[in-house]
């Protein structure tokens, strides 16, 4: 470990809990049609978008919050949340972005200034409800790649938005997705044209900053025939005593022979050891393998949030399409995670892989919930699932709920599940070889997560490892 990493680790605190001191435009708390009109106006949206939002809102009012997750939390008062917050100065270009925001992003490890931008990684920086800047957009446009905020895309590429938005996660899909459809603020739009292999990693960094606001981002990625893109998202939030709601929707579409690799490192503020504060993270992520031979791969490292409710899924519609889900979910302090995936096999010879690793420490509760569904026409479908849980200490818990629905009796489905405690024998073995206790625990945990980390792009794998160390610091012994 680098020495500054070590310093951070020893402090054992949430390292990204600072606040950016900027003037913010915040909508008054409350949600009604006026709020939605306000958001739409703030974003200079065309009329058709507002109509869709209002339609979603009408639907949402008839829905009830789902409670089937193994999660225990105080009810959310949707009228006490502010649905829009934005840094006051709306920048036209990077020169106009508030230096404090640039400084804050630098602190998060993401330099936005042109000369210091990360090599080979294009970034969309989102603060609260707006995208403040997007790097490398011009460079990418030379390849025909569109990489911009969803707000810009609604104005600039209405045909693509109309065609694909809500095509994977319908507006009335579930309570939180419908809420998002009504009030979504910013997020990223990516379009990779036919036959293009995106020349760099794309990423979005979401930062919640304003007090008492929800963040409702929406991301849409479309990969045309024979194209490829690797996309990464990161997120963090200030340390606060109040819970904050984050309800995002992500839609992915791959056409024939296309591939999307989507990685997440989720590090929202987790709250304290008594469950005070922290982000409520209710997210709908789904990918549609629309074309034959296409592939969607989700990799997630979930270390933050007080509550995580999230099931990145794949609908394998094209023949021979492939869905993958690799997940490490860590719950420590009083965190609760109910996470997993759905693999819906519709096309012939489709295959899916699920590798889920849950780590629980202190009072953390970790649930894997997964569905493998094999449709009547999905002959030759195959699934492999592996769900492993690791417990550190005796107050935490791990739970596994795998569901299987098969209409095709020929389908091949394999499921393996294990739960293990970091055993005293493993720890002792490493210590007897001169490795101190803390390093020994970290070695065992990293070993446990290896299958998932190996799926992450290099830079992110390094970040994920460091983050894991930081998260589990102080929860051992």
């Amino acid at each position, binding site marked *: 470990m680098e020495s500054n990493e070590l310093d951070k680790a020893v402090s054992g605190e949430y390292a990204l809990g600072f606040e950016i001191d900027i003037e913010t435009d915040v909508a008054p708390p409350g949600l009604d049609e006026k709020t939605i009109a306000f958001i739409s106006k703030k974003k200079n949206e065309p009329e058709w978008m507002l109509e869709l939002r209002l339609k979603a809102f009408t639907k949402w009012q008839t829905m009830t919050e789902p409670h089937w997750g193994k999660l225990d939390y105080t009810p959310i008062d949707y009228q006490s949340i502010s649905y829009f917050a934005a840094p006051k100065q709306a920048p036209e270009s990077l020169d106009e972005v508030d230096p404090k925001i640039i400084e804050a992003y630098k602190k998060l490890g993401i330099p936005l200034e042109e000369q210091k931008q990360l090599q080979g990684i294009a970034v969309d920086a989102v603060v609260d409800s707006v995208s403040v800047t997007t790097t490398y957009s011009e460079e990418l446009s030379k390849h025909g790649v569109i990489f911009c905020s969803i707000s810009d895309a609604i104005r600039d590429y209405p045909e693509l938005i109309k065609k694909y938005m809500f095509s994977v996660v319908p507006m009335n899909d579930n309570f939180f997705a419908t809420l998002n459809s009504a009030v979504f603020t910013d997020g990223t739009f990516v379009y990779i044209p036919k036959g293009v292999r995106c020349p760099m990693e794309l990423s979005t960094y979401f930062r919640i900053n304003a007090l008492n606001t929800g963040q409702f981002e929406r991301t849409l990625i479309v990969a045309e025939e024979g194209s490829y893109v690797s996309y990464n998202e990161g997120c963090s939030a200030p340390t606060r005593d109040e819970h904050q709601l984050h309800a995002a929707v992500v839609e992915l579409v791959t056409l024939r022979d296309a591939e999307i690799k989507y990685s997440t490192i989720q590090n929202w503020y987790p709250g304290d050891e008594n469950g005070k504060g922290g982000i409520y993270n209710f997210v709908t992520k789904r990918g549609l393998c629309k074309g034959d031979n296409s592939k969607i791969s989700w990799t997630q490292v979930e270390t933050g949030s007080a509550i995580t409710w999230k099931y990145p899924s794949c609908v394998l519609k094209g023949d021979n399409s492939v869905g993958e889900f690799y997940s490490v979910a860590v719950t420590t302090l009083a965190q609760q995670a109910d996470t997993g995936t759905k693999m819906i096999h519709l096309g012939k010879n489709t295959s899916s892989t699920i590798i889920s690793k849950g780590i629980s420490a202190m009072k953390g509760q970790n649930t894997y919930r997964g569905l493998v569904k094999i449709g009547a026409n999905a002959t030759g479908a195959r699934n492999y699932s592996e769900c492993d849980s690791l417990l550190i200490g005796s107050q935490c818990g791990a739970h596994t709920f795998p569901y299987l629905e098969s209409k095709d009796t020929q389908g091949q489905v394999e499921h393996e599940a294990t739960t293990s405690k970091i055993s005293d024998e493993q720890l002792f073995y490493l210590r*007897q*070889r001169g490795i101190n206790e803390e390093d020994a625990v970290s070695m065992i945990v990293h070993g446990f997560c290896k299958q998932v980390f190996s799926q992450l792009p290099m830079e992110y794998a390094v970040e994920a490892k460091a983050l894991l160390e930081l998260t589990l610091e102080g929860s051992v012994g």
Partner: protein
Amino acid sequence: MITLDIQNLEAKIGDKQILNGLNLQLEAGKVHAIMGPNGAGKSTLSKAIVGHYDVAIVGGDIFYKGKSIKEMEPEERALEGIFLSFQHPVEIPGVNNAYFLRTALNAKRKHEGKEELNAAEFLRLMRTHLEELGMKPDMISRSLNEGFSGGEKKRNEILQMLVLEPDVIILDEIDSGLDIDALRAVSEGINKMKDGKRSFLVITHYSRILDYIEPDYIHVLKDGQIVKTAGPELVAQLEEEGYDGIIVNE
């Protein structure tokens, strides 16, 4: 010269007292074999020396190079040069064998004020040892002990011993589950470590291993005490008369 000096050691596992005033001194450059019936306290003794959590020392003391180690953390004892070859080495999934061993070696080198080995230097070192032990090169890139056969696990213990170069080496049932080829390879590894300075404590049920690693002393452990100490000639007598015979004859 005495490397390890165990004085009147009393130790418990849970509520049960296992060691009852055990005295034992290991000499530099010598091989000490501990033999004894099941339940005599052989494994408890090795655990007490390395500071295993299961064992509570309730009386007496253990001195290593003149210093009491009773209160030392297990990793400190290891860094100071005490090594235990485990009877049942645990499997640690996903932890690369070479990465683990390099971390351990560099922890020790750092402790000794030496420079850490880089990956290339370490790999060269490993290659030599692997060949000596008749281990397949892919053993170092596999997960630590995961899916290893009994023989592979024991060879891996000896590999660690060769790399870490400890001063006091405890071999707990190193011969159990080994076929003749593995036994020979393991013994050769051990014999190579004999340099006139290191002490060996060979804990065993059977005399077979002692044909390969010639002991200087045989200690018989019974009911938590060393009840007899003699030269290697005791092995033959034990074979013939059994533990009861020896002890009755006392």
